[in-house]
């Protein structure tokens, strides 16, 4: 049970600023996601929480206590590394027992906890094997079991399921959520997969070059992104961002039903909010460039004066490549960004 806070934490490696004046608080029992592109400082933040790195500036607090100088072993935080970092010279069982053995637990306690963790992660049948003999999914379960076995105050996971295939990944992330709920522990989860971040996190932080750009519930961030950068990171296909002139006014290609706020430089439209209609002979046209039917939905790529837009449509609409169509969007569904990329509110 732990609340973890960053207060104006900065970490530099030489000239590179890996974490840039970051402040946030992860509540007790929260499933918190750090999300951003590669090299945005996600992993460094985890390493700072673990104590594998020391901040150059600022404070890190665990349950209100400053831990900047506390060694990793004394923080009682468990970690699942991106490459899992199993001990290759020990069996799966020895791997899972390791944290308890190193903490000098009684053999009876170790046995019970091992059994418990093995049952939770369904690895009882592979405990005698060496890591090299395990499949990717089994390895990852053993790594999670090793983190789970000793009842830490918080779990950190650095993209632990990125190495798995898509189906296993979906299964595992549902299970992770269940495990976190049952364990009743804070979980800080790093990922670069927006779908994963949105599906598991209670709250998430969006990172860009070491700085936190927005913190909130995934759906809130999705609906109210603070900037064009954040808006484009969430959602697949990504949000279309267009210069305002293309959307409204005489030369506009997409018909916006309403007026954009003053100072709007760019308009963002989510693919699912673009309405594609047959060309009625009026206004500018878009050309269908590519149609990707995905079964339940269809992604349509549109060529609008040389700029590619993507629209997400339900079902399998009757749209053919190279035909002309008209596009429109509701004022309420559009996002408005100023010249600096910051989100603007509708008047």
């Amino acid at each position, binding site marked *: 049970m732990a609340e973890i806070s960053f207060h104006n934490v900065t970490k530099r490696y030489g000239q590179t600023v890996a974490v840039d004046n970051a402040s946030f608080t992860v509540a007790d029992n929260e499933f918190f996601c750090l999300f951003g592109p590669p090299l945005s400082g996600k992993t460094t933040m985890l390493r700072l929480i*673990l104590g594998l790195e020391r901040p150059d500036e600022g404070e890190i607090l665990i349950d209100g206590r400053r831990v900047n100088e506390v060694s*990793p*072993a004394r923080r009682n935080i468990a970690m699942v590394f*991106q490459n899992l970092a199993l001990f*290759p*010279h020990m069996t799966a069982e020895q791997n899972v027992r*390791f*944290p308890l053995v*190193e903490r000098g637990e009684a053999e009876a306690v170790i046995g019970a906890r091992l059994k418990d963790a093995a049952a939770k992660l369904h690895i009882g049948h592979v405990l005698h094997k060496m890591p*090299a003999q395990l499949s990717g999914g089994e390895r990852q379960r053993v790594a999670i079991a090793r983190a789970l076995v000793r009842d830490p105050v918080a779990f950190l996971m650095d993209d632990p399921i990125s190495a798995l295939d898509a189906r296993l990944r979906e299964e595992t992330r549902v299970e992770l959520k269940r495990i976190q709920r049952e364990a009743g522990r804070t979980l800080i989860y790093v990922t670069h997969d927006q779908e994963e971040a949105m599906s598991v996190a209670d709250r998430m932080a969006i990172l860009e070059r070491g700085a936190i750009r927005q913190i909130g519930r995934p759906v809130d961030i999705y609906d109210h992104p603070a900037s064009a950068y954040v808006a484009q990171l969430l959602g697949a296909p990504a949000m279309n961002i267009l210069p305002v002139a293309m959307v409204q006014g005489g030369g506009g290609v997409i018909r916006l039903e309403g007026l954009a706020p003053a100072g709007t430089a760019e308009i963002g439209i989510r693919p699912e909010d673009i309405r594609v209609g047959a060309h009625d002979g009026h206004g500018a046209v878009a050309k269908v460039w590519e149609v990707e039917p995905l079964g339940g939905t269809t992604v349509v790529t549109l060529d609008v004066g040389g700029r590619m837009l993507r629209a997400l449509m339900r079902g399998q609409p009757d749209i053919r490549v190279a035909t002309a169509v008209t596009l429109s969007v509701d004022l309420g569904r559009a996002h408005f960004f100023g010249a600096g990329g910051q989100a603007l509110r509708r008047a």
Partner: protein
Amino acid sequence: MRRSPAFEAFRYAAILLACAITLVPILWMVSMAFKPIAEWQATGADLTWFPKEPTLDNFRYIFGESGSNLIVALDRTAAKPILSSLLSASLGTLIAMAAGTSAAYGLSRFGAGGNLPLALIQLRLFPPMAVMIPVMMMWSFLNLMDTWWGLALIYGIVTLPFAFWLMKTFFDDMPREIEEAALVEGCSRGRVFWRITLPMMRAPLASAALFVFILNWSDYLIALLLTTREWVTIPVYMASLSSSMTGQLYGAKAALGLIAAVPPVFLGIMIQRHLVRGLTFGALKQ
């Protein structure tokens, strides 16, 4: 790709030739070790691949029994040189591996001693002959001349760069997250080294140690200059195996050579399982 029969024939001929160049001298040494003195210098039709009358006389001879009246008994047997070689090469390997491994770990993990690799290159670039005379002076000042421990010390110093480089490559290839996981799970730095790093490094350590041991074991120059009588090593002793009456004692040398080949081969077989893994450790993605 299909190769023509002519190419295949050529390929196998080349392989056979390469094997012959490598293996025939060894075979010749083994054969010579069991030849009686009469066959040592046979020529023409008398020269045979295998001993006509195999004998252990050569082995008896170097250990002090004069099995033949053609040559006088040696005043010194091979026993002590063998002991000298074993002790000095083993302790030298231990010194090089202990110091080299520590240095490699410090540099690989903590960047300690960043200029060390350069210094070690310079040490290796120095012509050994140029440093041996000063070393002789130092060793005689320290009373280390003609002792196996004095030899071991210089062996440790000379082979340290090899131990360092080999181990550094292995440490660099070991994912640091594995050690960090142990840190997070409750180990101190020192404990991580003993519980995680060293056990994982068993195979690389064994390969590097064998390599260093072979270098020390086959040294001639250093032992020639630093030992005079008491603790001469096998190579130095072997060079002295000649007599004024019969010239080179080929059979005795071959017998000693055969004995000298035993420890490296024995060690190699012992750690063979590790050796394959150790030498390919960096090449394979885990």
